[in-house]
């Protein structure tokens, strides 16, 4: 069930990598921000956490689009490490703004809905987990439809495949990249919002999660949305089984171990990744 959440939080990373060929290290910051905004809407205005994405997705889209316009655009031509450092700076700012605004206390959303369970074939299942899974799948379907059925979606895919060729056939590549970055950030906010239903959080919690996202994206193939969904399932299964054999406090190690194993066992897959990186 956690797979839905993992997938939702990794789509944005894959989309931004696919189109802009940069790794969004600030993804963790936007996840965290999504969780905090959901919590804030709930505690201050009593808005149901499941409705929060309606506000978060457009707001985060605008934020991401603006960020691309003002900062990210300037470093796109530079070495990959420069954009990584820029987004790392954005992450630091977001994380520590959150510390200043919301302090480092652990927050969680407390309401009957979050604790509710239903029995499915004799197994008690937590209601929010079902919803999170459903919304993760929903996001996958919506994203896939958007990318294959609309003009803008096709333009995004064309830009991801070959930026120059896309420009040649008359796609406004600059505009597409801004929009893709915005969507990526919106997806991170969406993921964060879902996450607030399942876990408690602090401004710092994004780090291990962003590691998981990276692991998922590497597992699933760097610019395939469906691949990301499979990667998410694989990692959440690995974690669920891993917990049986090792203490829960070491659970976060699993994603790292999986990452290393994939890198050593599948050098071919990584070689493809590296080639894509060199081209970008």
């Amino acid at each position, binding site marked *: 069930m956690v797979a839905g959440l993992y997938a939702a939080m990794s789509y944005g990373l894959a989309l931004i990598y696919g189109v802009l060929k*940069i*790794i969004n*290290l600030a993804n963790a910051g936007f996840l965290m921000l999504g969780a905090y905004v959901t919590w804030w809407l709930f505690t201050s205005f009593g808005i149901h956490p499941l409705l929060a994405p309606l506000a978060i997705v457009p707001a985060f889209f605008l934020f991401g689009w603006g960020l691309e316009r003002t*900062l990210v655009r*300037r*470093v796109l031509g*530079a*070495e*990959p*490490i*420069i954009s*990584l*450092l*820029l987004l*790392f*700076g*954005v*992450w*630091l*700012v977001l*994380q*520590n*703004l959150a*510390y*200043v605004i919301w302090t*480092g206390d652990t927050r969680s959303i407390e309401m009957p809905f979050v604790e509710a369970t239903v029995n499915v074939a004799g197994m008690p299942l937590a209601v929010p987990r079902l919803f999170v899974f459903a919304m993760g799948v929903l996001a996958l379907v919506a994203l896939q439809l958007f990318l294959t059925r609309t003009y803008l979606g096709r333009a995004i895919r064309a830009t991801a495949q070959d930026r120059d060729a896309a420009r040649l056939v008359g796609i406004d590549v600059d505009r597409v990249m801004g929009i893709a970055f915005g969507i990526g950030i919106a997806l991170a906010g969406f993921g964060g919002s879902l996450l607030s239903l399942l876990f408690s959080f602090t401004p*710092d919690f994004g*780090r*291990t999660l*962003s*590691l998981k996202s*990276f692991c998922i994206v590497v597992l699933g193939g760097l610019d395939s949305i469906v691949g990301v969904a499979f990667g998410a399932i694989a990692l959440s299964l690995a974690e669920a089984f891993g917990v049986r054999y090792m*203490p829960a*406090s*070491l659970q*976060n*190690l699993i*994603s*790292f171990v999986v*990452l*290393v194993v994939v*890198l*050593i066992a599948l*050098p071919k897959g*990584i070689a493809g*990744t*590296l080639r894509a*990186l*060199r081209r970008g």
Partner: protein
Amino acid sequence: MDRRAVALVAVALAAAVAVPFVAGQSEYVLDVLFLIFLYGAMATAWNLLGGFAGQVSFGHAAFLGIGAYTTAILTQIGVSLWLAVPAASLLAGLYSLVIGIPAFRLRGPYFSIATIGIGEATRLVALNWTSLTGGASGLTLSAAPPLTLQYFAALALCALTVALAAWIKRSRFGFALAAVRQDPDAAETLGVATTLVKTQALFLSACIIGVAGSVYALHYLFISPDSVFGFSTSIGLVIMPIVGGLGTVTGPLIGAVVYTFIREQLAATLANADLLAFGLLLIAIVVFEPRGILGIVDRVRRAARAKAAPAVQR
């Protein structure tokens, strides 16, 4: 090095050595300078890999932690410092080889992200291996050497590291690292064993930071996984060289001065405001002047020269 630079270095060193005798009992001055030298040494060591070879690591706190914990544990069981400090350095170096082998299968940004994972994994292990590390409650060391001695240790470490960096930059090894940074494929074609030189740079940098870990532990006398293995330590090591000037010899030292002062000023006023400031600083530097403070100095100098030149012609 030209004669002016030699003179400048000699004067700076003499001044640094004289400080404890002049400042005397002012612990604050010594303390701040101690931190600058300690951070300067670590930033310079990080820069060997991150700046010279272009492999940005977000996990260097692991080496500081291993150095600090090795020193703490060895001195607790009565091992002399003359043995404990080299052991700390060596262990950090060995650990860097263990993680370097899988991590260097990755390039550029992928390596960087893997190092976040390595740093985090190391911290988690230190936190959970309670029988060895004492877990979250940390370890306490019994006796500290006098502050003046600590000061000289940090100064010596810093001076040696900067000298090493200056030497490496002009050596064959340094050129190989620069080739790896500029274009790994071309470097490989030209006969540079890219993985080997990257691993060597990582090893050197880890050994130096291991010693810094010893000095750190002996200064604070208390270490915990969250302090020495903490992510903010790794962040600091990334920020200092970038602020000063990535891949230069003196840049990390300048960065260490800026870093120490910002931390001293802001950490007291607002929790985490220092990291907020560093984040903004990082964004500003990357967008406007990726060469850091030395890049700004260079620009100002050129502008001054451009202004002066026409005057001479007339």
